[in-house]
């Protein structure tokens, strides 16, 4: 009988029930969309902030202070990192958070008119097959995304092949020698001389405008430094530093075992630096504060902003649902009066109304969750051009929210109706 009455209400009053389901669906979709976006916005913004370039630099231990301080000739200090160790960076504990990295080797070369030019060897879009089966294209094409290409295009290592001797030239230098894409320049290094074809001219808005960038092996050949590199720039996704990370950065030995584990297993910039030093022989990895710190600040602000907006919309959705449920329960005063008049107990009436509303709420909630997922994807694709990862924790949060809100909306109204005297209600006066 109980279920028959419920079925009866749902079938006969389908219009009203549909409206409740619709409102609950709206609220649930709002909640799930905002929660998904909020939980993923940190990762997404972090990716965007990668346009600021590397946040970690790795240099040989002995060279870390020498080159600028004593103005050693040509910046060459005799200390190098090994090129064949580069792959190891992708094997550290936080390998997954290493988005991009590139090695650098600076040498001085001489142009035909006798001027010294700084020539930098690096990866442009170096393709790597990692032991984990992952594939990665790393290099300055993405690490120097702010470079403006004046003529030609980014040097493409993958299609160029080893025999093509290509390079990219800074805009100031290109102007001086009248170079554009396709022209050639003859350069003499310490050990060998080569003629390079210009693949592109870039404007970096800094000292790089006076330099030539070429693939690593080309530059190594100039100076006879096979397999050697000067420095590595690493772009990693990191968590903003806290007090623990700051203490650890000074001296990891000062931490207790459990603190050390927490620090090592959190992607602080200092723990990633530490792990890089573990795999690259005789290296010093340090955070580029300009990038690492600012990223942390902006990330924190964005997360907090989204969290507050989410809270506002959750409150809005909750009150909206609550309101409608109250309004629709109160509307049924005469029905409840009738039930009381023919002898129904309060418990049964409450059970009946609540069950009806909950069936509607489950239906609406499921629908809303699906719609919310869709909204989140629309936001993700429009703003960041990538899908929003759905976190499993959104489902229980939205479910609990819907249940609580429905209860909060219906219980006071039901209580009020139960206090009404059936005769008055049925008579139509209140």
């Amino acid at each position, binding site marked *: 009988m109980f279920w028959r009455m419920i079925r009866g209400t749902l079938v006969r009053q389908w219009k009203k029930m549909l*409206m409740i389901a*619709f*409102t609950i669906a*709206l609220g649930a979709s*709002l909640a799930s969309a*905002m929660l998904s*976006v909020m939980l993923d*916005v940190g990762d997404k*913004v972090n990716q*965007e*902030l990668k*346009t*600021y*370039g590397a946040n970690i630099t790795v240099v040989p231990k002995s060279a870390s*202070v020498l080159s*600028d*301080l004593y*103005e050693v000739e040509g910046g060459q200090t005799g200390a190098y990192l090994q090129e064949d160790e580069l792959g190891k960076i992708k094997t550290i504990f936080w390998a997954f958070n290493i988005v991009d990295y590139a090695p650098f080797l600076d040498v001085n070369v001489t142009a035909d008119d006798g001027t010294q030019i700084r020539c930098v060897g690096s990866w442009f879009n170096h393709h790597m097959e990692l032991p984990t089966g992952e594939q990665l294209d790393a290099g300055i094409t993405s690490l120097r995304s*702010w470079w403006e290409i004046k003529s030609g295009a980014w040097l493409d290592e993958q299609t160029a092949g080893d025999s093509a001797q290509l390079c990219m030239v800074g805009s100031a230098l290109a102007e001086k020698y009248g170079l554009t894409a396709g022209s050639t320049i003859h350069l003499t290094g310490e050990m060998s001389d080569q003629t390079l074809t210009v693949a592109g001219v870039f*404007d*970096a*808005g*800094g000292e790089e405008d006076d330099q030539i960038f070429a693939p690593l092996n080309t530059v190594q050949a100039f100076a006879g430094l096979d397999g050697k590199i000067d420095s590595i720039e690493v772009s990693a996704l990191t968590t903003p530093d806290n007090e623990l990370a700051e203490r650890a950065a000074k001296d990891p030995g000062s931490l207790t075992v459990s603190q050390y584990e927490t620090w090592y297993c959190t992607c602080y910039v200092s723990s990633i630096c530490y792990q890089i030093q573990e795999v690259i022989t005789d290296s010093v990895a*340090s955070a*580029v*504060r*300009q*990038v*690492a*710190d*600012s990223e942390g*600040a*902006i990330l924190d*602000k*964005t997360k*907090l*902003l*989204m969290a507050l*907006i989410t809270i*506002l*919309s959750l*409150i*809005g959705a909750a*009150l*909206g*649902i609550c*309101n*409608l449920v*109250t*309004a*629709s329960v*109160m*509307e049924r005063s005469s029905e409840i009066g009738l039930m009381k008049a023919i002898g129904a107990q309060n418990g049964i009436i409450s059970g009946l109304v609540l069950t009806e509303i909950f069936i509607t709420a489950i239906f609406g909630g499921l629908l809303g969750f699906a719609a919310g997922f869709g*909204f989140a994807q*629309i*936001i993700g694709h*429009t*703003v*960041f051009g990538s899908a929003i990862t759905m976190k499993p924790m959104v489902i229980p949060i939205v479910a609990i929210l819907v249940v609580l809100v429905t209860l909060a909306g219906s219980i006071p109204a039901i209580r009020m109706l139960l206090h009404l005297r059936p005769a008055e209600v049925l008579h*139509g006066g209140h």
Partner: protein
Amino acid sequence: MKKRQMYLRMITASLIRRRSRMLVALLSIAIGATVLSGLVTIYYDVPRQMGAQFRNYGANMIFTPSEEGFTLEDIQNAAAVIDSGDLVGIAPYRYENVRINAIPVVAAGTDLAGAQKTSPYWKVEGAWPAAGGEIMVGAAVAENFRISEGDSIEVSFTPEMEDGHDVVEDTYLDFKVTGILDTGGSEEEYVYMSLADLESLTGSAGRADVAELSVSGGGEVLAQYEERINQMGSPVQARLVKRVTASETTVLSKLQALVLLVTVVVLALTMICVATTMTAVVAERRKEIGLRKSIGASDRSIIGEFLGENLMLGGIGGILGSVLGFVFAQQVSIHVFSSSIRFMPMLVPVTILVSVAVTGLSSLLPIRGATQVDPALVLKGE
């Protein structure tokens, strides 16, 4: 006159007597209006506030001298082009080779207060130099010379050989180390002192090698400033730090798009929520409509009364919402950006208008539906 009084009386009486239902409706409208005014305020203020956060990345414009060099006065004249509200900080730098323990080090003299603003990411262990005779050393220098915070060091400078003299005497100054600078960049290899100290050490004043500026504003604004300064004909050449400006524009536009889209989605859903609640509240009163019709009220007057009532609710809800929305936006701004938000007077009438429109539209349909029903059937309860 009498008719209008009666109309107003009916509306207000209905609002007061059906208090609980009307409260439900009013609450829902107020929520909608709060979300509207709160989110729109945040949306308009976010670029400004976030832009200030992005100034964490430090200088985004650099002044470099043309061949003959420039003076502090030139820098000041050029900086005057930039609107003082947009200029976050300016720090002129002068670099000289000095010696500590007879070993050469590059010393930078600057306006220290300005440098703190143009390089907010610098991490100083200890304190920034405040008075004369104080110095801050880079971490690499500190490690090399075994200098720690609180030490006293002697800095010497060898002036350029003047004509007619065979020997020049070195000048010496004693400094107290107030802090060690950690940046992860080449700044760690320099020592920093106030421009006045460097001038008294070298014996020449008024010169600078470069100036760093932190200017808030989008890419276009910055490009305009750059062009205007370069056209002044002074020895100052302005250049934008592409790495900072280009990236800031990209990230900031994404963030703004994010807030815009979120605002649109939240607003659309909230407004539909308000509409369904209003529909439910009005649909409940079919009996009343039937009664009025049976005692001879025309459809027009019924629609007019109901609409008047709901528009009034919409207005009150809108006013409530614009106040609450501003309070919310203010709280967000204080918590997230630690600064207060700008009040937008235009938003108040817009919020009220939108809530009146939404309540009006969402109640119009069910009222019209109710007026078309046969009063006898409604009153009978069928």
